[in-house]
């Protein structure tokens, strides 16, 4: 097992609304191993995007990161190079830094250089009035890379080439590019400073299925060349099955199950994962596919037991009273459910 690059412990992010605190992310823990592709799947309101944005400390008011630790590998080299004032981050566990202890200024210097984002809705993530080459260059400039015009030109051409785009794209404006090309530019930007971790927040949700596959393959190739890890956030289970090594299923702000993708699709442990996978239409057999009755719970109320209890076919009394904790029930399989825990 490769060493972990990212270690999230008990992350909590609440949105303070007039009607009370919405617990969008309520104690989520997971690890991202080196050169691994981890999927984070969940329906709307499950807190998957909030978790990703919390890693970059980009939670906008009224949201606030209430607690938890985010240990990131490779952050110390970046901070050192940035001459950050000795960075009071606790350097433990082989050079990992707890992002929560960093100042805002240090956190900014880590974005793109240590942990990069491929934003949701890549269709308009690029500055509409700036040429592509400038949007790649300002990443370098603002992170202290002193490059001559020529060096910049070469790096930009190389980046575009690695994501399958002609160098002439550098002089174009975003509105002159197709959806797929815009996403490739976003990937080029994300890898420009060779980060350790790449966060992809539903990058292909607006693309057609043919273009989606081509771009996902480019992302895979580029990630392997770079030796970076990818955290892919999304709601399309099919895409997850094809594109990630390990999959985390989130429900109502908590992690229901984290397992290798092969295990979770062949034998899902958590009831929600089971129902979710069962409800997916397939191209093989024209069967009766059924949905999951009921509605996800409100994140305002303090739910005593397991949030999925009201919709869970295997509900026990214990589920309504006690909160299940994420435990390793099988090699590398973590589940938060009493039913499964019992049958270890």
């Amino acid at each position, binding site marked *: 097992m490769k060493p972990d690059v990212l270690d999230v412990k008990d992350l909590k992010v609440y949105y303070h609304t007039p009607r009370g605190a919405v617990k969008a992310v309520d104690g989520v823990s997971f690890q991202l191993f080196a050169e691994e592709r981890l999927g984070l799947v969940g329906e709307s309101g499950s807190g998957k995007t909030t978790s990703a944005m919390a890693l970059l400390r980009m939670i906008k008011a009224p949201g606030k990161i209430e607690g938890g630790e985010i240990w990131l590998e490779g952050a110390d080299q970046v901070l050192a190079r940035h001459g950050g004032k000795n960075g009071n981050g606790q350097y433990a566990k082989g050079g990992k830094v707890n992002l929560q202890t960093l100042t805002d200024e240090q956190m900014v210097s880590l974005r793109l250089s240590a942990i990069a984002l491929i934003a949701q809705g890549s269709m308009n993530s690029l500055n509409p009035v700036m040429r592509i080459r400038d949007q790649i260059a300002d990443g370098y400039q603002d992170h202290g890379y002193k490059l001559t015009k020529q060096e910049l030109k070469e790096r930009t051409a190389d980046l575009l080439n690695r994501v399958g785009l002609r160098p002439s794209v550098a002089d174009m404006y975003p509105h002159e590019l197709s959806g797929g090309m815009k996403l490739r530019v976003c990937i080029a930007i994300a890898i420009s400073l060779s980060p350790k971790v790449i966060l992809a927040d539903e990058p292909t949700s607006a693309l057609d299925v043919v273009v989606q596959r081509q771009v996902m393959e480019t992302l895979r190739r580029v990630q392997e060349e770079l030796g970076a890890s990818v955290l892919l956030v999304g709601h399309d289970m099919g895409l997850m099955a094809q594109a990630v090594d390990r999959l985390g299923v989130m429900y109502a702000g908590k992690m229901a199950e984290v397992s290798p993708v092969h295990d979770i699709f062949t034998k899902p442990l958590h009831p929600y994962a089971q129902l979710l996978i069962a409800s997916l239409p397939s*191209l093989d057999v024209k069967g009766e596919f059924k*949905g999951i009755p009921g509605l996800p719970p409100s994140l305002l109320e303090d739910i005593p037991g397991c949030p999925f209890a009201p919709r869970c076919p295997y509900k026990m009394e214990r589920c309504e009273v006690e909160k299940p904790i994420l435990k390793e029930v099988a090699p590398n399989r973590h589940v938060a459910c009493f039913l499964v825990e019992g049958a270890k």
Partner: protein
Amino acid sequence: MTALLEARHVTKIFGGGFFTKSYTTALENFSMTIENDPPSVTAVVGESGSGKTTLARLLLGLVEPTRGQVLYKGEDLRKIGGRERRVFRRDVQVIFQDPFEVYNPFYKVDHVLTTPIEKFGLAKSRQERDSLVVQVLEAVGLRPEETLGRHPHQLSGGQRQRIMVARALLLRPRVILADEPVSMIDASLRATILGSLLKLNQEFGISILYITHDLTTAYQVSENIVVLYRGNVCETGDVELVVKKPLHPYTRLLVGSVPLPDVNRRWAAEAPASSIGQKADPNKGCRFANRCPNAMEKCIRETPPLYRVDEKRAASCYLYDDKPQLRSEDMMEVFIKGTPRLKTVVGVQ
């Protein structure tokens, strides 16, 4: 027998105003008939820009074709007015894509149900109207006390979309055009909504035209399928065959690109695009030539006609130019006929 709803050689071109020279051809020489007896479920699949939404708006009479006609019971929509238009309006209904955009924010959700009842005079008294609303809500699996009297923003996307299905059911249409009805709904709720759509077909004998970009739901729901690519039909016929053994290179690419939730079947490796294809002019010859791995010289010159490859399938590709040609208005001949069913009469009429 004249078809209930028919598009005959319909072409729709947008743009081309006084100054702007650029125009886009959304749909080109498209023909299709939708029957109600027996009630059928047909899927129209295509990427964004394939013209599938334009087709829906043409069949609904919201937009007029640049060339060709849209016929309701054999009569051109443009000539239908007054009372006859109301009958057409009641026979052909729609379910739109975005559950957040279909409700007038000023009113409660009931408005979207009470308005058609009022306009089409479906209920004599207020009491009859309310019972009709309750009936259709329950028919789509919604509890009236949890949905009525609420503003749209107080309901989830799934609930809102099911109310739209109930609205369609209310008018007892012969045909429902569902334009991407579940693409904005979470996976778990998607099945329930598609289930209630199927129920309209099986229990109430309403034909469904299911328009989507998602091949998997199309396969699950429909009997026949039309695959559109940039305004042209590239393959059509029995959905089972089209999905399992695709003929047209684009359909193959489409089926191969669908990310299946099955870890044993990995994404098929992509075949390299051919060199001839690069030279293709996107507005002449086969629209798919510039991306087609087996593009031939012929493909670049003129648009391939529809070839009837076998009893239940047709494809417009020169790979099958040895097969008999099929005129675009006879496309229906390859469709498998729906199992005729007695139109089950439920209390609601």
